[in-house]
């Protein structure tokens, strides 16, 4: 098992993530894992009691997880949002821009390269859930 990468300072959440179905059945789970095809909006009523949401990327080219992450963050979710599966260096800054703050890749990611990737683009064109200031706001104050 490759070690997970966390960009958060809070304590690691110990409870294992359960599937979305079990989560919806069970009233007390605090960690949940959603698969690429599942609807992240089903979690919206429970966001205040969840501390970890893991979103799976079955293949790096399957981009559904980006929208799932954005939806959760736009709805105010502040807990850990972890991308798992086929998570690669070249997509990781996009994931971060969509609100992911933890990564559980299938194969290890070189931490120095990851830092370089995060810093590569000094500015961004869009407003997304990472709250970076879009270029148009820099232009117009």
């Amino acid at each position, binding site marked *: 098992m490759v070690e997970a990468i966390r960009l958060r300072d809070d304590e690691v959440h110990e409870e294992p993530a359960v599937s979305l179905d079990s989560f919806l059945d069970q009233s007390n789970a605090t960690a949940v894992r959603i698969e690429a095809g599942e*609807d992240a909006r089903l979690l919206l009523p429970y966001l205040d009691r969840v501390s970890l949401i893991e979103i799976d990327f079955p293949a*790096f*080219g*399957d*981009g*559904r997880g*980006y*929208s*799932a992450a*954005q939806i959760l963050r*736009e709805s105010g979710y502040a807990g850990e949002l972890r991308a798992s599966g086929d998570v*690669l260096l*070249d*997509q990781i*800054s*996009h*994931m971060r*821009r*969509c609100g992911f703050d933890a990564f559980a890749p299938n194969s290890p990611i070189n931490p120095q390269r990851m830092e370089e990737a995060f810093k*590569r*683009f*000094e*500015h*961004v*064109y*869009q*407003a*997304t859930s990472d709250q970076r200031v*879009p*270029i*148009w706001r*820099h*232009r*117009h104050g």
Partner: protein
Amino acid sequence: MYQYDQYDQKMVDARVEEFRDQVDRRIAGDLTEDQFKPLRLMNGLYLQLHAYMLRVAVPYGTLSSKQMRMLGHIARKYDRDYGHFTTRQNIQYNWIKLEDAPDILADLASVEMHAIQTSGNCIRNISSDQFAGATADEIADPRPWAEILRQWSSFHPEFSYLPRKFKFAVIASDTDRAAMRLHDIGIQLVHNDAGELGAKFFVGGGMGRTPMIAPEIRDFVPADELISYAEACLRVYNRYGRRDNKYKARIKILVHELGKEEYTRQVEEEFAHMKQLGLNPPVEELARISEFFQDPPFDTQASDDLDLSDPDFALWVDQNISAHKQPGYAIATISLKPRGGIPGDASSAQIDLMAELAEQYSFDELRVTHSQNIVLPHVRKSNLYAMWQKLDEAGLAPANLDLITDSIACPGLDYCSLANARSIPLAQKISERFADLGRQRELGELKLKISGCINACGHHHAGHIGILGVDRKGTENYQLLLGGSGAEDASLAKITGPGFTEDGVIDAIETVTDLYLEQREEGERFIDTYRRVGMARFKEAIYG
């Protein structure tokens, strides 16, 4: 023309460095070809039959002379001295070495150009009307809106791994010169009752193996909600577009399977949520960008007179010149379809010459058209003759705009690994068979479009006459289609029947054009006669 500020420049510079790093890792073996493929595709680098192909974006088809010269330089230095202008207003180079690609991107960045997202399952180059800012029939210049979309879509983190590629076109006229409704999202700028400018959205058009004309899903999106509406359209697609079958993955299939009403309902629901998120640039941003698209300093005293005593020039004017909004000026289309030539190809020397002429005669501006020609948008009528002479000397003055030899053809089996049949040699033979300009003019407007396989890069579904290369028991075979249009009267062409050999399909084209000449009524184009008379009559003529 739009000019980069420090932010735009830094984005493309950073991209060059990122790609240089990725190429280094690929060459060193740190990236597998599978991992590298989507990365190179997002930089426009395809692997073709014989070599890498690089596709360079020409946002909304607009270029300055300096940029055009750089395109010539790249052809000369890194390729075999020519480039190929494409149906999405881009340019492609066919013989690129992987290790050169980062240097080419750096050269492009030095003139505010890039190859970002010219390929891959992301939002591609935004296309537009090649007559934007010059034609009298538009209600506004669509390009500032296209530029807003270009910036928004560049490196969009949520929409970089869509089910399939995604293409926008933006126009601002009832005359559609951009095949707008054959795009994933087509936008037409319109006024609402209050006289404000906004965007009408058409979603779910496309060609490929299942061609569809995009239905309208919203009649008016205000300027300051453009981005959140586009995001809503894309998010529904990203979440629910099919990923199980790449042939069913385009948004047109989603819109078709859900039905336009249900897709629209989901978009509206998402939009209601998204418009509160602060995703839209302020109207000042559109105003800032629009400043770059102000009219050039036209001479308001310029004369409308033209000396047409040279008959060849007169023919060219009649065919290739379009009306300009400014009296005394003209829009000139340079046809890249010489007799026997390869549609859309231009040599470095020709590219340089077009750049020079634009500098001298067209306020430094050029356009690429979706039918693979080049436009000089703002030429003073009194300069047309001098300009035409220089074009003619360089083989750039075919007077065949919108005629049968002004065909679109995809690269086909000469370059493309997916091809069933050759497209280029067929286009060349057709242009020889119909070389007589008098005959072409007699046939009038006739859009001939050729694809080497079902992927439809050559727009055959949208041809008045379309040709589709199919593979029949290992020999190249061509199907003939009739009745398509990519214009405001958009329609999809239908297959006439059994396919033909290369010569056979050219004979069949002669048969249908002869029938047109025999059947046409006053003022009818080929397509009009076809629509009135119907397929059966044409079939009978072809197959007896």
